[in-house]
């Protein structure tokens, strides 16, 4: 089992959109996927029309991991389940570390209720300070959408510094896979920023870039992944390419 976190220290960059489409793409290839909506706003659950489940009782969660399994909902798509937003960050940390540890009761009990997942996709909320080392450690790959602006360049640097600061606990920069999000080709600034960043971080940035697209925005109206309702459009193609590179990196990780 592999954990892919869609993460950024900046809000509104396309993490949820990426989580939803990546989870869908994994499921489409036959992997069994659990998409965890970790944002209390419940955005990724919304895109799959899954109602937020009742808040899990913390103590019960720690005592009885089966509670998690009970909160999982099947999406409308084969192989794709959703864990709707219902966890506090503290729950989330524990959840992750337990999922990683194959001996953990959480993992075993999830297995016992018939959910042996190949991939867990995390849709993270936009706040670096509350995301603990634990999460960075647990993820096999951290997918970071980056809007190619000067400001984003700075935040990305901070992100890498933060990750490197975790070196002692074996979190490697190599886990970072950034992609350019909401790219507008007509903006000269976007082009310049992308070129500069690719130069500075040749290995950290995926080749594929996601264009700015009304199709992605329409996800909110259609309440489905772009890949499901506009499979042939440029944004869907970009998500597929991003997915392919993510798969390759996971295989190498």
């Amino acid at each position, binding site marked *: 089992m592999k954990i892919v976190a869609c993460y950024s220290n900046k809000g509104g960059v396309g993490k949820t959109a990426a989580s939803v489409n990546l989870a869908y793409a994994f499921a489409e290839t036959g992997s069994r996927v659990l998409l965890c909506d970790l944002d209390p706003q419940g955005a990724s659950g919304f895109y799959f029309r899954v*109602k937020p489940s009742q808040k899990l009782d913390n103590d019960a969660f720690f005592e009885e991991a089966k509670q998690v399994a*009970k909160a*999982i909902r*099947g999406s409308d798509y084969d192989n794709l389940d959703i864990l709707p937003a219902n966890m506090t960050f503290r729950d989330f940390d524990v959840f992750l570390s337990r999922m990683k540890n194959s001996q953990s009761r959480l993992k075993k009990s999830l297995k016992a209720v018939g*959910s042996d997942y190949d991939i867990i996709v995390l849709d993270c909320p936009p706040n670096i300070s509350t995301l603990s080392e634990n999460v960075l450690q647990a993820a096999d790959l951290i997918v970071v959408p980056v809007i190619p602006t000067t400001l984003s360049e700075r935040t990305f640097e901070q992100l890498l510094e933060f990750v490197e600061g975790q070196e002692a606990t074996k979190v490697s920069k190599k886990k970072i896979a950034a992609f350019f999000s909401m790219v507008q080709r007509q903006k000269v600034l976007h082009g310049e920023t992308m070129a500069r960043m690719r130069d500075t971080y040749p290995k950290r940035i995926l080749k594929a870039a996601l264009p700015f697209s009304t199709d992605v925005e329409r996800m909110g109206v259609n*309440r489905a992944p772009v890949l499901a309702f506009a499979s042939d459009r440029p944004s869907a193609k970009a998500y597929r390419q991003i997915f392919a590179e993510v798969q390759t990196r996971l295989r190498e990780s």
Partner: protein
Amino acid sequence: MKQSQRSVLILPGMLADEDLGTTIGDLEIQVSQPDAETDFEILDNHIGSLQMSGQVLIRAGKTLTLLGGHEGLISQGAASKGNLVTGLKDGPVKDALQHVPPLRGLLGVGSGTISHRDLSMTDDENKTLVRAHLTTLNPKGGGDAVTIAALHPLRGYDEALEQLRDHLRASAETASPDAADLSPMLFPDQPRYNAKPDVAIVENATAWQSAGDVITVYLQVARENEAGIIADHDTEFLHDYRVALRKVRSVLSLFKGVYPEEQTAKFKGIASELMSPTGRLRDLDVYLLARDDYFAMLPPSLHKGLALMFEMFRKERRGAHRALAAHLRSSGYHSAITDLQAAFAGTDGPPKGPMADASVGDYARRLIWKRYRKVCRIARGITADTPDDQVHELRIGCKKLRYLMEFFAPLYPAAAVKPILKPLKRLQDNLGLFNDYSVQQAFLQRFMDGHEPLGHKQDLVLAQSIGALIAVLHERQKEERARIMASFSQFDGADIRSQFRSLFNAKEA
């Protein structure tokens, strides 16, 4: 995530869209347009192995779908080599049919048209909570239409699943039958075959009545195999046909004194005449079925000759089958067997012999006890040096004993007969193999001496392989021979002896 399709409902009727409605409480249901109707066929073998185990096998177009068992609905491609389960492509349906006797072909039980619809149930945000795939079977003939609903629950929506289940049941015409009852519901006129029907033998019947009952039933069994032999569906039809006729013949020879002597001889003659045209085809079937075993007996260097031999068998079989099929279709055969049936089924029945009116209980005990003692007498005389003839005599004796015990089994508690049949069966297996090996040697020798020449070189290759085969068979026969005394001494244990005595020897008991 897709759950295993555990939940399958069998719903009598077409389950028309109007009957399904559009809502369940505040949830909506959507039903897709049915796809184009195509033909379907229900498959089972002659003995109904699938039906008896609660399975229904549907072939529609290029797909085989199996209903029943823990899996719910499973399917795979319908492509197959021949009609045996072993001929199916590997897949989940084939896996689930491993219990089916391997020599029984899958045959069409009935046919009709099939159509499919997809149903989904959604909430106020248009989220799907549960899906169902509806398959409607509309049979040709007098049967009733049936809809099979495969429920596909989505994780975490158990309540919706239950709601849909209840709704579908309520929309059906009648209560859901078991999978085992589906095929009779679709095809009520399909006759059910039983190779070993229970013949009700009751203590206070006469020997004459009981003999007549057994013969009548087994003549009927034989007849129910005629069409399958002619169509050459599988080799078991001929096998069952011969077993049934052999039972008829053994009743005639074992139930001594039930009919007048010359009448018995006449009946036996007819039964033998019915049997004799079937022998060659059955022999060839047996060899062809054991093909792999024969190849395993010889080193690869001698396989070429075996391949030649089996090719000749295959060709000969085609002719033998054609001849037997023609015979079974002939008016001569037809009148011979119907006359024989009439002789036993008629109101008067066949004439009575001196033992006709003996009560069957006493009669059976006397026959079995006598036969048992004879078997023991022969067996106790057998040593390592006894000539084979005597071993053959023992084999025949055991066979007769077994027939008698089986015929009269309904008179005795099953729990009492089973433990004494077991060592008898083991002894018989031993004797049977001993005999088979010797019969095979003779058969192969005859074949080698009498076959159409293939040309000098080929004849030599063939002769080498057959010669080697005979040598192996001879060796095996010797090994079986060496086991006979041990098998018998197991059968001849003190407890078995006392059980025989208490069951079958009223006087000494």
